[in-house]
């Protein structure tokens, strides 16, 4: 049994213009100790999918259907009080903005001990000792000194390491990282990614990494789910995905990477962009949502929506005309 099993997840938000569906029937699993990348453009539904797991979407306006099973337990129907015991203890989240995600009124050490005392019922003394260990675990130098500092005294990269320390304080089975390196300097990003890799190796934590950066995916993920307009359009192990992308959208994303820049007619290296825009989430016709931007679109692409089909071992793609690899 997979650690996390998401089946036919659909998430809509009530707005003045009716219900907007951000996620439409997404299914995938996460194995223990696996790093799964959820990738796609802004607004493709990757964050909404991930935040539905610990139920962090605004409850008043969210319409959710489908199943989310953690370790066999159905999370979508759990009472809020039980969900609260799962958040931070079994499923932890690291957000995108490290500088604003820490409480400015308390020291970082206090904020780590707070989670430990809430979920692990540690004594104040034991929690403090553990906080120092955790800061050391996420690679913060001089943790004995840093525990007593306030968030404003730390750099962005340091804050993100503290956020990770808080997230892994109770050894969660699943860590959700929402664009954890996007707000950081490129030079700091690699270090933070190393922390995630190290945590997986040492603690066996499964990680869902939400990112739009395929460089990050190639660097750290075991498997990737590519999302477009609220649907999973391709999922595969990372080596397989980069070697044999089947969906034209995945291929387009890879061609848009700086490393894949091609030499143009003027002799300068140019990035290949995907033409067009993401479709509006308000309309959802029975057709491939990517066809207006797709180089290999044909007549049948607008006749019906391509289902997610198996293209070799553990490789799924939703396309009638998948990439020209054997």
């Amino acid at each position, binding site marked *: 049994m997979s650690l996390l099993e998401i089946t036919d997840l659909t998430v809509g938000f009530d707005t003045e213009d009716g219900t907007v569906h951000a996620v439409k029937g997404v299914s995938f699993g996460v194995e223990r100790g696996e790093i799964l990348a959820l990738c796609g453009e802004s607004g493709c539904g990757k964050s909404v999918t991930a935040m539905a797991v*610990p139920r*962090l979407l605004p409850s008043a306006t969210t319409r959710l259907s489908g199943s989310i099973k953690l370790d066999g337990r159905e999370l979508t129907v759990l009472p809020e009080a039980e969900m*609260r*015991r*799962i*958040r*931070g*203890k079994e499923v*932890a*989240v690291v*957000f995108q*903005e490290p500088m*604003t*995600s*820490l*409480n*400015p*009124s*308390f*020291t970082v*050490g*206090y904020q780590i*001990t*707070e*989670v430990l005392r*809430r*979920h692990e019922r540690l004594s104040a003394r034991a929690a*403090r*000792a553990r906080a*120092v260990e955790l800061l*050391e*675990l996420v*690679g913060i*130098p*001089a943790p*004995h*000194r840093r*525990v*007593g*500092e*306030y968030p404003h005294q730390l750099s962005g990269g340091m804050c993100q390491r503290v*956020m990770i320390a*808080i*997230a892994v304080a109770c050894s969660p089975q699943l860590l959700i990282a929402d664009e954890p390196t996007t707000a950081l300097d490129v030079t700091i990003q690699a270090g933070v990614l190393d922390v995630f890799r*190290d945590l997986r190796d040492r603690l066996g934590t499964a990680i869902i990494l939400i990112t739009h950066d395929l460089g990050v995916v190639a660097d750290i993920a075991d498997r990737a789910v590519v999302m477009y307009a609220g649907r999973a359009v391709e999922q595969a192990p990372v080596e397989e995905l980069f070697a044999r992308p089947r969906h034209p959208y995945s291929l387009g994303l890879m061609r848009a990477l700086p490393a894949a820049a091609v030499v143009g007619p003027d002799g300068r290296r140019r990035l290949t962009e995907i033409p067009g825009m993401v479709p509006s989430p308000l309309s959802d016709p029975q057709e491939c949502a990517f066809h207006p931007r797709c180089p290999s679109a044909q007549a049948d692409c607008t006749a019906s929506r391509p289902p997610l089909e198996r293209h070799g071992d553990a490789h799924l793609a939703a396309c009638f005309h998948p990439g020209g690899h054997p």
Partner: protein
Amino acid sequence: MAEKTHPPEPIVRWNSGRADRRRRLWRRFRRRPMPMIGLTLVVAFLVLAVFGPLVSGDPSAQDYLATLMPPSIDHPLGTDDLGRDAFARVASGARTSLQAGVLSTLLAMAVGIPIGLAAGFYRRWLDSIVMRLVDVTLAFPFLVFAVGLAAILGPSLRGVVLALSFAQLPAVIRITRGEVLAIREMDYVSAAIADGATDGHILFRYILPNSAGPLIVQATVAIPTAIIGEATLSFLGLGVQPPTPSWGVMLSDAQQYLDQAPWLAIWPGLLIALATLGFNLLGDGLRDVLDPRSGP
């Protein structure tokens, strides 16, 4: 990362003191002249209220052989129409003012902050009801509201304190609620929810500490308003009753003797002005220092 490279250090008690933050704020505060003048005036007012009555003698002792005396060695601020020492009365009046100003503000904060927190955090019908009531009461000018309440509650120090705190309540609720609405959207609150924090924890560990700045400023601005309120109510006869000394009562009594003993009106008037000026300057200074958007 696996190897410890630093020498073992003793575990420090880091979450006890917030001393360096306070030191930084104090450095920022000290550089500004006007808030320092305000602080000096407030401290002088507190010293007068606390220690003045201890050294001045009985403010009610009458001396019919020395009525309406100008300032002298025996009576540094002169005497009133019943021969009572003006300094003793001014010092005791400071105590009355301090009680009315501080107690009514503390009471308004103690009641208004929880109401504002609950309204801003839980929204829905609670917020609607509370805020409509606040809007209605804010439509009355502060003093009109206070005068009305004092008339109902009866003339006494207790009545004045209750009337003034009730008159302050809507403003406290509104400011607290506004802070909650702003801070509940912060990333660190989302992060706390994601860590499994309870509502109470989020309210008292995340929202309240981070809205302390505006609330402290509100309190320092509310105290002088309440001091003037007490003086006004007492001046009108709705507040503290003779023989308890109050600056408002002294002003009221001094009206009859303006031509013979103008100092009797000058002392309480000057003190009301200086005490309220002090609190207002202090409040402005605190606002500058506690507002993270103002400079270093």
